């Protein structure tokens, strides 16, 4: 084999601490290397041309590029060698940037390490074999998990694009947080008026199947051919019959059920439809509060329901759906602010969350759009807003900025003044982050036209004084302490990843950060992709963001799915395990250890053997280390290939 080695400067990224010319010179002495050079930017057009030309000129039949991480450019260079007529697997990459130049300053040591990494790559390449992908069919249906505004957008865009869409929503209605909001910044338009029609579109679109009050139980398969088990949780109401008339709600005697939709402002009935515009508009019984389910007595709803839909014996149901792509759009949840003892830790009824305030402002909310103190129902005069509660605060393990709280606080200050012209609002803030289009103008309006008093500083303590609350904080611009007599305190609570986010990520085999937000494929270049082919992200599940950005991501994810499905067949990854039938003794150990169920038992002339199902294998390599015979070999990472790397490294 004749190998060509290209050592990249990456501008000064690598050359700054690695003598790339010396690495190339050393490489010329390695077995099989017929050509070696250093180049400024290997990934640039001239850089790639240099590779193509060298392959032709020196009749190379394998190439090593020593540059950045394979995650960045492996595909790029595989295509380059392919253009010059080589098989894409006769290419190896040595990562001398992330693994060398960026992490060490000693030029000599770095140069030595880079040389060794190139030696390993070249030795492995000597053992590489051409590999060819196979084509397989794809199922052009898409699963969208989470029916917030991001999931709704993705669902509608995919459905409009002609795809069959399965939308799975955890609660009994789609809409997510946006359905709970009163108005939206920076235009102060009614949230339900802009979201409502889109929710109706979801319900009516012939291409969309909606599973509400459902969750993902299990995901198997791979891009183009996923199989998903959906759990339809028991609602004790036959939704095929339920017309959403709401008569049951008026008669249910259990009126103290937790009102999740209204964020606990007020109570609801055990059987309920969360809000008038709910999609689907179907009733569900909260088993924890239902007298019939708890004590066996009552059953009034069953008597009054004109459609006869109540079924106290209903069980969870499972359905299996086959799809070719998945979009996760599971949104966020509010941080549990009760860890803040200084704000009362939940002991003071008149300290509420921003989302509770939204429900209070909403005309269809539990107070009919009247701002009332939870403690005594009085209208507040002084309303204090505290920003960054559970955001930008390392002491509670949330160093990140939620990004939208500054904006919704300004909105809520404006709305407060609209509802109660006599009220005075105060906003304690750290900085104002209003970077969107028309955003800064909006916060200015809150201050200048709506007379919100903005105080830069943190609140150190809230405590009851008479029947109001004393809010004490610092005014860091004035360098003084301030105390405000507040009737109502609204906490701009930051965003956490949604409950159960990590569990779902594991089912989907995607990564998440230490806070539970899903990791995008690349922070700049692959914002809605994940590292698992065929799984995409939209909205706050990837990180907190406002409605415009969530919607943009919903559309972006949909366009990725439509792009993927624009092909009729996909090429399989040949880097999978293969069982050498001659060596296999049929012990079946690999079948047991494979986490993806990718190995099956076959009968070969009366003998038991193992066989890998190519399309299911994820290339994890577990079977190769399980097999006592060395029969299972992961292509492109065979024992011989790996041992040659080890030998190259440990030759002295």
């Amino acid at each position: 084999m004749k190998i060509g080695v290209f050592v990249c400067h990456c501008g000064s990224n690598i050359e700054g601490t690695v003598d790339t010319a010396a690495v190339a010179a050393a490489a010329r002495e390695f077995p099989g290397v017929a050509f070696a050079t250093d180049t400024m930017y290997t990934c640039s057009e001239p850089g790639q041309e240099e590779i193509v030309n060298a392959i032709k000129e020196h009749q190379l039949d394998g190439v090593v590029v020593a540059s950045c991480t394979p995650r960045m450019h492996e595909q790029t260079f595989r295509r380059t060698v392919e253009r010059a007529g080589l098989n894409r697997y006769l290419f190896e990459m040595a990562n001398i940037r992330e693994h060398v130049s960026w992490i060490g300053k000693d030029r000599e040591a770095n140069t030595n390490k880079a040389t060794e990494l190139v030696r390993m790559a070249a030795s492995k390449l000597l053992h590489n074999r051409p590999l060819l992908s196979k084509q397989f069919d794809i199922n052009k249906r898409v699963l969208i998990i989470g029916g917030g505004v991001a999931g709704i957008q993705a669902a509608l865009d995919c459905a409009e694009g002609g795809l069959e869409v399965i939308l799975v929503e955890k609660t009994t209605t789609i809409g997510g947080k946006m359905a709970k909001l009163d108005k939206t910044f920076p235009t102060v338009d009614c949230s339900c008026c802009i979201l409502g029609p889109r929710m109706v579109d979801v319900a009516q679109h012939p291409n969309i199947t909606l599973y509400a009050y459902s969750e993902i139980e299990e995901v198997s398969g791979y891009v183009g051919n996923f199989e998903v088990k959906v759990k339809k949780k028991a609602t004790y109401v036959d939704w095929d019959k339920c017309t959403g008339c709401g008569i049951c709600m008026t008669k249910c005697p259990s009126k103290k059920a937790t009102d999740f939709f209204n964020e606990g402002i007020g109570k609801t009935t055990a059987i309920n439809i969360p809000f008038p515009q709910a999609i689907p508009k179907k009733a569900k019984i909260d088993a924890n509060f239902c007298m019939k389910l708890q004590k066996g007595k009552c059953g009034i709803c069953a008597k009054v329901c004109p459609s006869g839909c109540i079924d106290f014996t209903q069980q969870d149901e499972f359905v299996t759906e086959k799809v070719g792509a998945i979009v996760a759009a599971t949104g966020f949840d509010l941080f549990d602010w009760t860890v803040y003892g200084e704000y009362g830790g939940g002991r003071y009824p008149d300290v509420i969350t921003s989302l509770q305030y939204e429900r209070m402002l909403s005309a269809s909310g539990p107070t009919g759009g009247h701002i009332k103190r939870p403690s005594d129902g009085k209208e507040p005069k002084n309303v204090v807003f505290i920003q960054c509660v559970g955001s930008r605060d390392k002491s509670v393990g949330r160093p990140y900025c939620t990004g939208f709280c500054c904006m919704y606080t300004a909105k809520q200050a404006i709305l407060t003044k609209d509802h109660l012209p006599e009220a005075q609002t105060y906003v304690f803030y750290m900085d104002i982050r209003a970077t969107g289009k028309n955003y800064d103008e909006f916060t200015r309006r809150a201050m200048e036209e709506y007379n919100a008093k903005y105080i830069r500083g943190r609140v150190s303590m809230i405590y009851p004084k008479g029947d109001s609350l004393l809010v004490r904080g610092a005014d860091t611009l004035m360098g003084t302490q301030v105390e405000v007599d507040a009737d109502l305190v609204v906490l701009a609570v930051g965003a956490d990843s949604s409950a159960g986010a990590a569990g779902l990520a594991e089912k989907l085999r995607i990564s998440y950060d230490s806070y539970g937000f899903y990791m995008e494929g690349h922070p700049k270049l692959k914002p809605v992709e994940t590292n698992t082919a065929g799984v995409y992200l939209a909205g706050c599940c990837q990180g907190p963001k406002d409605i415009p950005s969530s919607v943009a991501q919903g559309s972006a994810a949909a366009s990725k799915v439509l792009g993927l499905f624009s092909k009729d067949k996909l090429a399989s990854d040949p880097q999978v395990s293969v069982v050498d039938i001659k060596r296999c003794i049929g012990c079946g150990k690999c079948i047991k250890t494979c986490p993806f169920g990718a190995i099956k038992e076959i009968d070969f002339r009366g003998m038991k053997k193992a066989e890998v199902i190519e399309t299911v294998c994820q290339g994890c390599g577990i079977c190769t280390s399980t097999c006592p015979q060395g029969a299972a070999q992961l292509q492109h990472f065979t024992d011989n290939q790996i041992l040659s790397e080890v030998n190259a490294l440990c030759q002295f």
Partner: protein
Amino acid sequence: MSVSLTYAYYPGCSSTGTSIEYDMSSRAICAALDITLTDVPNWSCCGSTPAHTVDHTLSSALSARNLCQVASMGLTAAVTPCPSCLSNLKTAQHRMKNDSFREKVSKLLDKPADITVETKSVLQILVEDYGIEKIKAKVTKPLTGLIVAAYYGCIMNRPAEIMNFDDREHPMAMDNIMTALGATVVPFPLKVECCGASFGIPRKDVVMRLSGKLLDTAKEMGAMALVTACPLCQMNLDMRQEQINSANGSKHHMPIFYFTQLMGLAFGLSEKELGIDKLCVNPRSVINALGMEGDSKEKSQ
């Protein structure tokens, strides 16, 4: 029965003077509860606020010396009634987790600084090591009818990473003890507020304002008395109560107990042992209201 608890006891300087009644009552209730306190031999001042505002290493060396004394007793846990002493001991221990800092301290001590001793407050051992239920069992004269506000001061629980005791914003240790004694505890919102502390000397007006607010709020909440766990808090609220009244135009007459004194009363110990007579604001009417007529000798005084 479990083995009885034994601690090295570090009284701190106030215990020999302004807060002698805290010391007396702490010893008395520990004896009543079968908790053994052995005085640290030849202990020295922790340096209090002045030391650590001047030099961290020297200040830590003062505490490190006392910790070495504890280690030399063969005991692993030290207890002090005073949160300020405790704060200095714990801060020194925290700083000495840094090797180079510990070396500097060891040099000053002429011997390796100890890093094994565990330090706690009297309040902390009572709730964490002894237990509220057992305290409740010892009550012979419940404080039924007594309405108190529990005031912890600002350093008993903070900084949380160093003090590592109860909730930094909403501690309940003393509240729970008082409830166990049969008293009624009001939800006192200023539990961990500052009383003005050592500003009593350079800026008396600060103490008048801050401690005044504590008294006003306690009264507003309907408390008959305040319970404290800190010599400086107690002194500002008790000894300076008249000054506060004249500075603020208030008319407080609010007894300021150490929590240990009330425990002693509930255990049926004598007022004498508990140093009740050392309090500046006369608690007589409050104690009498409990149906405890006080020590016969005192009554005749």
